[in-house]
């Protein structure tokens, strides 16, 4: 490497600035990060699986109660949120593509659009929740909606609030992470040689989306 000019060496240093000393190469670092993220997503699926099991158990025991209680949920608002989240999955995928092809402007724009869509999802959720609180639909013991007096109805809404609530927390975390990445992208931290955080956040965001795709029909439609 003796004949490499100083300028070339400096350029090389910059493009490897992300490489941690305990990794041999960028590829190894990227593979490790990606595998770690996939494992984390597995744990997320298992976290939600507990709630899906609770849903399944009570649904099998009390199908008629679930049928009645779910009519209280507004499928149009749920459907709107589904469209919003699917759209955000598209924009986050576009953001990853932009990072891979060194299009900084497209990367920043797509990340911010994703954040906006996520925020829109939470706004719709806010209106759904406040409407229910207004009617007196609270989880469990505090349930006070007189039109639905059956015994198990409060448990349906407990499950509804817990599942959508924990999903909502994941959306909020996603908003935080994606905003942070958008700000870093504006400063030019990502390029075709290093876009690991964008890709990992994208994976996470797709998972949040997929979980909603299961929640929507199970809670609103069936």
């Amino acid at each position, binding site marked *: 490497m003796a004949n490499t000019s100083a300028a070339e060496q400096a350029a090389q240093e910059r493009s490897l600035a992300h*490489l941690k000393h305990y990794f041999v190469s960028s590829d190894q670092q990227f593979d490790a990060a990606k595998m770690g993220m996939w*494992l984390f997503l597995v744990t997320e699926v298992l976290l939600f*699986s*507990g709630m899906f099991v609770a849903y399944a158990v009570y649904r099998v025991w009390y199908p008629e109660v679930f049928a009645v209680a779910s009519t209280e949920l507004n499928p149009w608002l749920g459907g709107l949120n589904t469209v919003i989240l699917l759209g955000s999955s598209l924009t986050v995928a576009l953001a990853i593509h932009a990072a891979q092809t060194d299009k900084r402007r497209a990367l920043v724009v797509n990340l911010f659009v994703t954040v906006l869509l996520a925020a829109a999802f939470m706004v719709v959720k806010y209106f759904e929740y406040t409407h229910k609180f207004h009617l007196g639909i609270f989880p469990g013991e505090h349930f006070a909606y007189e039109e639905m007096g059956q015994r198990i109805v409060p448990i349906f809404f*407990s499950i509804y609030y*817990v599942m959508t609530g924990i999903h909502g927390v994941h959306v909020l975390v996603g908003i935080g992470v994606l905003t942070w990445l958008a700000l870093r992208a504006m400063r030019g931290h990502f390029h075709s040689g290093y876009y690991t955080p964008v890709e990992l956040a994208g994976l996470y965001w797709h998972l949040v989306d997929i979980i909603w795709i299961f929640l929507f029909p199970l809670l609103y439609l069936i």
Partner: protein
Amino acid sequence: MTEDKDRNETPQGQAAEERGDYVTHAKSIGSWLFSLDHKRIGILYAVTVAIAFLLGGVFALLVRAELLSPGEDFLSAQSYNQMFSLHGIVMVFGFIIPAIPGFLGNFLLPLHLGAKDVAFPRLNLASYYLYLLGVALILVAMVAGSVDTGWTFYTPYSARTGPSVLFLTMAVFIAGFASIFTGINFIVTVHKMRAPGMTWNRLPLFVWSIYSTSIVQVLATPVLGITVLLLFLERLLHIGIFDPALGGDPILFQHFFWFYSHPAVYIMILPGFGIVSELIATFSRQRIYGYMAIALSSVAIALLGFLVWGHHMFVAGQSVVSSVIFSLITYLIGIPSGIKVFNWIATMYKGSISFKTPMLYALSFLVLFTIGGVTGIMVGVLAVDVHLHDTYYVVGHFHYVMVGGTTIALLGGLHYWWPKITGRLYNEAAGRLAALLVFVGLNLTFFTQLVMGSRGMPRRYNDYLPEFTFLHQLSTVGSWIMGAGLFLVAIYLLVSLFRGKKAGANPWGGATLEWTHTGPRPDPHNFHRTPFVTRGPYEFDRIPELVAAHRDETPPDAQQNVHLNQDRT
């Protein structure tokens, strides 16, 4: 271009020696508390875990002292309930789950793989602080008021009793995440950070066992997370999912809880298997018998462990068919466990065995774990369990596995790697005496409990019928002997830190990389240069030539080194 990787690898010799080893190269408190070095994080775990063990041990001694005679002595029934609950919670979540992976796993895994660090050092430090926060919250719950649910938090009682259940569920949730992140970190490290030439069948068995443990941590702990989260909400908002008064189902809680907590006992015991494999190989100076069988039986136990949770619920009201199925799968776990025990014995056969302290612990493990395992099969038998369920028999079985298995293995590992961790040798005579005390005390404490249980003494009672007095007294005396042994261990190990003889790089003649390729205490970056592995972990006949090669090694040819590093996956 990968020259960059070498920027922290100082050339052999003077520079490296001036920098000092991992203990001496930086001395401030901050350089310990915020270190990203896996070895230092391992030490942080060791200290915290030791404090948790001391606390849990004191609770246990108090419980045993109360049981010295029938009737209420110095603890009220309520404080007795709190004592055994705290003993269980602190020992399970504060000590036995994080102990081996957090301490020895962190310290050794990268050394065993020939790596500079784990794949995600910052996540590693974050795991430690999450764990610390979890332990702190358990202590807050202790101060805040009564925790009298036992470590299993069964609903509906836990949803109705004191408010400190809130702190405890939070503590378990947070400590659970620490465990998950450690698991993810270790799995990725094993897959991606191995040195060139370190193929899967050259991994030390300790790595295999930590790897299996990590699989269980990653796949089981999230379910515990959601379970305690639901319990938290149940306690806070009365959401009713587990509360029969609101139409909920408490048995569902038990299913969720044991779906985690049965695999969790394999989180606790699997790393112990790894340590014992290392000890038996080194102190018999034999290549391990049935390497792949031992390695894969760990993985088999990890996977089978997910299918047996129902054996905790034979009398809880699950269907007879599922009880039969769970009972049958439970027997299957005996197969890989037996494979291990037979392979360890076969490894010792015709070996030149030296009865150093770590080996004494390994031999104790063989005896105690076999008793623990066989009694486990007995409580897994459907009809027998109906009689033994919720008696001291189950307590005795569990403690034979957890104390006789995991804790003994941890003690063995602690003694074995003590010279590598501290650079000092402990007093061998004191070590042997302590090992003997622990072995005798442990059997006296827990074998009597097996006998009491089979005669019908129920667990978790602070009082008992007079005919159990003698056995209870024996058990309490046993706990004192065991306590004395453990205090002796603490004393001579602490003394050795200051007065111990300086250890060489390889005092036991071990053949894994941490013995053959690092100094008495490892370098901050583990190896002066990335090892190139050409042999298995137990080829003791090749140690002299390997150590010689390591000493004389000259700065590597740069081109060749790059080539080797690129080859690895």
